[in-house]
């Protein structure tokens, strides 16, 4: 989320799927939308039918390519070079949307004179600390600003980006305005000129060399985007995990954000960046996070080294201006929702009840700690890491080191069966009788057997109603955690141990119904929404207070139970509403469907054009109005200038649409909140057949590498042994299967449609390696070897990169040893190597070998 969060202020898609129909040009990159989000893709087809350009840029030719107006083949892992090329094209040809850029982005802002670019330091920005392998971002700040916090605290931010999930709320400005600006965009240290210099070498020829895209094809894309942006026209970007699952994943998103800000495409109909998420509520599980580094609503988890008390925590995490100024109200209201009457001003509202983090505690760190025996037990719910995690073999071995494991799912997935049915057990590396892990498998309820809400890819909460009772021991996760908490509290009752107070004093009373005593999801949603001093449901997060008089489980969801109505359950038929359909479900924040939509009007509040009108200032009524809920204070005039001493949202000018940012602008350059650089830079993937044409520094210097047995890195270009793994591999999904297969390989129809693991190779690679269509191949890396059926297809073609021909191998990653359709797990092949911001694995680009025939038993490293 930091890619979108730091650029615009919120870690969510800026637009909604139906709005794609208004686009004049849609670029789909890092996504095979037609096959992975087929029903959402109908809106892309609507746009195409209306004459829009649809450009698909991908290593593989897929159904998305087939239905696009243009397809561009690219080398996996080189997208920043391509997007940087577009930035260069825009700037060198003067194609930026000048009025938008000057008023709505930080292009005019002058950056600290100590800042040095990668172009000056051979692949590093200023502030690199070799001993710590991270950046001190002091020199990335706006010029003339007092630097926040002590050196130690800054180091914390640079280390983890823990507080970065939702944007730059750390930046502190005097009533919203940066101290030094140059609206002519000519000052050598203004962001606009920094961008120009940073991307000066990303020419069409450079793109051709790095990406394997002929320069004319590249120019075609750049021109189409520019021609379809501006006052009269808008372009959109769609991406998925093809962009995020890289060691520079967050910077991929940042690069698209820069393109869209320069072209003036954010906050406008037919524009935006649509993040296509792969799970029903992956957005929801980040907003209300089952993540270690944040609390609900992107409030950071407190850090042991930085946050001693609530006051300090709020001070460090709120900005002087913008909506993050109200961090105190959001945090205190959450603490009140959790600890009720126990949370008082005198005891810092139980702030000390929150456990402290001390670094990266993401799942991959946990897995390595499990291997070292430091973790006793694990609960896995609705996830299948034995197939879905990078280097999944290591994950399976780690589970064998646990004392106990709880797995909750509808079927007995690989994660539950690792102790008797896994490649390791079959090869004799692990013996069932030697594995001491106690395993509990608890059957779970399906979505048809429980009430609850999912948050979809466009930040929209939709309620699903229980249709039938679950059978046997099947229960919802809500049931499991509620009753688990109840039992633990009963067992600990009477404890005088200080450590037990947080759980004993927790507000943990939800009404239950039925024989199974199923808790009420509706009551939980109401708690998430929040209540006021009179106990009634709140309607908006502006009502939240920091004095303990309001309680709210997740401030960005405040309003989802407004008027005591379950808003996500609203289902007014589309045919009875406008195309925006505001009465279908409920979108955060405040039911807005396109966010930052104040940017759909010019600085004076008028639509940029009749064709692209969406939200505008109504002078007669003295308020913002339009198709959507305005993402702006409703009565703030376009010419509003904050008075001295203004704070929070009142410190944001009337012509600055990015109201979560301390300066109200979209950030082309990110001074804080991203740990591996203020501007995206092309680095090679961790494993790549190529050196970096730009710098001696090959990969992202801040990426997380874990060199240890079972997770070795392969030799790369030029190193001895690099010829053993000469091909690029990339993993992907099929229409008929879902992620690690737990919800699809156990379903008869779907298993019949895609019955076994295969790999996609070009006719040229097939000839080179004697691979036969329909025959077997073994794909090998330092981590593992897996078998796959061979699909020889023209959809894969070798690319000419840096004067050499490179072959790419495509690997769907759905299979495992269980279910109706079985096969090798692609994720066994990949190393654990991570993006430093969000700790996501790089499984969209690595190197491999491929040989004809089945793998010899037991010969796997």
């Amino acid at each position: 989320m930091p890619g979108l969060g730091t650029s615009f202020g919120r870690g969510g898609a800026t637009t909604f799927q139906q709005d794609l129909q208004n686009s004049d040009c849609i670029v789909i990159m890092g996504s095979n939308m037609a096959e992975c989000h087929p029903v959402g893709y109908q809106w892309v087809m609507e746009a195409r039918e209306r004459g829009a350009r649809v450009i698909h840029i991908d290593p593989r030719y897929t159904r998305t390519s087939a239905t696009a107006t243009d397809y561009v083949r690219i080398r996996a892992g080189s997208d920043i070079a391509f997007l940087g090329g577009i930035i260069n094209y825009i700037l060198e040809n003067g194609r930026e949307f000048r009025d938008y850029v000057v008023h709505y982005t930080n292009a005019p802002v002058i950056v600290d004179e100590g800042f040095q670019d990668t172009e000056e330091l051979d692949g590093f920005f200023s502030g690199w600390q070799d001993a710590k392998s991270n950046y001190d971002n002091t020199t990335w700040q706006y010029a003339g600003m007092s630097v926040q916090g002590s050196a130690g605290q800054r180091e914390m931010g640079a280390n983890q980006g823990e507080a970065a999930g939702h944007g730059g709320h750390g930046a502190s400005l005097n009533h919203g305005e940066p101290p030094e600006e140059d609206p002519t965009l000519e000052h050598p240290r203004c962001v606009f000129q920094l961008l120009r210099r940073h991307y000066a070498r990303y020419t069409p020829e450079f793109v051709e060399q790095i990406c394997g895209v002929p320069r004319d094809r590249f120019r075609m894309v750049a021109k189409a985007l520019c021609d379809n942006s501006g006052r009269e026209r808008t372009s959109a970007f769609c991406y998925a995990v093809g962009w995020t699952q890289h060691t520079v994943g967050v910077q991929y998103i940042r690069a698209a954000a820069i393109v869209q800000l320069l072209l003036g495409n954010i906050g406008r109909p037919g524009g935006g960046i649509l993040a296509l998420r792969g799970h029903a509520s992956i957005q929801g599980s980040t907003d209300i996070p089952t993540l270690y580094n944040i609390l609900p609503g992107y409030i950071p988890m407190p850090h042991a080294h930085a946050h001693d008390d609530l006051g300090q925590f709020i001070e460090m995490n709120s900005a002087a201006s913008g909506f993050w100024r109200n961090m105190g109200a959001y945090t205190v209201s959450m603490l009140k929702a959790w600890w009720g009457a126990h949370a008082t001003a005198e005891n810092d509202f139980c702030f000390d009840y929150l456990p402290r983090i001390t670094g990266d505690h993401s799942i991959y760190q946990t897995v390595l700690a499990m291997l070292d025996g430091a973790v006793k037990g694990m609960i896995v719910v609705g996830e299948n890491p034995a197939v879905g995690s990078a280097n999944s073999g290591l994950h399976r071995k780690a589970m064998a080191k646990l004392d106990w494991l709880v797995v909750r799912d509808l079927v007995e997935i690989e994660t539950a069966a690792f102790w008797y049915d896994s490649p390791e057990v079959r090869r004799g590396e692990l013996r069932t009788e030697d594995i001491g892990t106690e395993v509990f498998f608890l059957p779970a309820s399906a979505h048809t057997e429980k009430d609850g809400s999912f948050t979809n890819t466009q930040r929209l909460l939709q309620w699903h109603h229980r249709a039938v009772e679950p059978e046997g021991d099947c229960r919802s996760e809500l049931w499991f955690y509620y009753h688990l908490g109840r039992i633990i509290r009963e067992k600990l009752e009477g404890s005088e141990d200080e450590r037990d107070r947080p759980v004993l004093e927790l507000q943990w009373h939800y009404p239950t119904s039925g024989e199974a005593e199923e808790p009420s999801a509706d009551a939980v949603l109401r708690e998430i929404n929040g209540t006021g001093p009179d106990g009634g449901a709140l309607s908006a997060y502006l009502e939240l207070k920091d004095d303990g008089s309001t309680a709210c489980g997740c401030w960005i969801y405040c309003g989802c139970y407004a008027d005591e109505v379950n808003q996500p359950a609203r289902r007014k038929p589309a045919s009875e509403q406008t195309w925006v359909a505001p009465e279908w479900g409920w979108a955060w924040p405040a039911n807005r469907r396109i966010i930052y939509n104040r940017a759909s009007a010019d600085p004076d509040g008028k639509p940029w054009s009749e064709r692209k009108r969406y939200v505008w200032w109504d002078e007669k009524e003295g308020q913002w109005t339009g198709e959507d809920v305005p993402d702006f204070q409703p009565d703030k005039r376009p010419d509003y200038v904050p008075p001295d001493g203004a704070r929070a949202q009142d410190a944001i000018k009337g012509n600055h649409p990015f109201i979560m940012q301390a300066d109200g602008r979209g950030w082309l350059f990110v001074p804080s909140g991203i740990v591996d650089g203020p501007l995206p830079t092309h680095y090679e993937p961790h494993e790549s057949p190529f050196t970096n044409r730009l710098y001696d520094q090959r990969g992202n210097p801040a990426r997380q590498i874990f060199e240890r047995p079972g997770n070795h890195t392969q030799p790369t270009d030029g190193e001895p042994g690099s010829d053993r793994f000469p091909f690029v591999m990339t993993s992907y999904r099929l229409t008929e299967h879902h992620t690690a297969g737990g919800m699809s390989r156990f379903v008869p129809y779907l298993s019949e449609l895609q019955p076994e693991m295969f790999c996609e190779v070009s006719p040229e690679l097939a000839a080179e390696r004697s691979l036969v269509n329909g025959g077997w191949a073994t794909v090998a890396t330092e981590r593992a070897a897996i078998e796959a059926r061979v699909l020889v297809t023209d959809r894969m073609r070798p690319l000419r990169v840096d004067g050499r021909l490179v072959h790419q191998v495509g690997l769907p990653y759905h299979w495992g040893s269980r279910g109706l359709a079985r096969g090798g797990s692609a994720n066994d092949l990949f190393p654990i190597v991570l993006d430093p911001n969000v700790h996501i694995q790089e499984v969209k680009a690595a190197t491999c070998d491929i040989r004809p025939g089945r793998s010899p038993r037991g010969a796997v490293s």
Partner: protein
Amino acid sequence: MTIGRSVRELISAWPVLHQRDGDRGALGSAARSERSRTLRPRTAEPDRVVRSVCPYCAVGCGQRVYVQEGKVTQIEGDPDSPISRGRLCPKGAASRGYVTSPLREYRVKYRRPFGTDWEELALDQAMDMIADRIIAARKDTWEDKDSEGRTLHRSMGVANLGGATLDNEENYTIKKLMTALGFPQVENQARI
């Protein structure tokens, strides 16, 4: 063939006559039989139709769940949805197969340490045993302060994984309970 039907009816049902009279491809009335005439879709007479959302990807297609005698008999796209307009992809269309899969598990299964087989276990007992293990692991691995005396108030001995396939209300209770117990290692699929 029904006894007592008149010869006239029999002749009029003769496919070749229908083909002669316009159904040349024999895909219409010529192909009808008594059996096909009396077939009814599974969705024809449900006890109730319940509004739902597809559980697979994050497009968020509307679903209508058809229920008869306490069982899910069919799942269809919801034409009222402004996002999906009644459509479902192959996965969404196979959702009935997902919720009624022949491989679904309905009972708790237990594998004791070093055991070679699953064993039966009552749900209540499983819950009790899991609660005991959490309390014990928490006690054994509790960290009040770090070496420099700073508050940690946590245990790194228990981890929780999963959430992107679950409901918001479920993620909320997971995070709330695990945090109150002092377990920071709560994670899901969403590393984005």
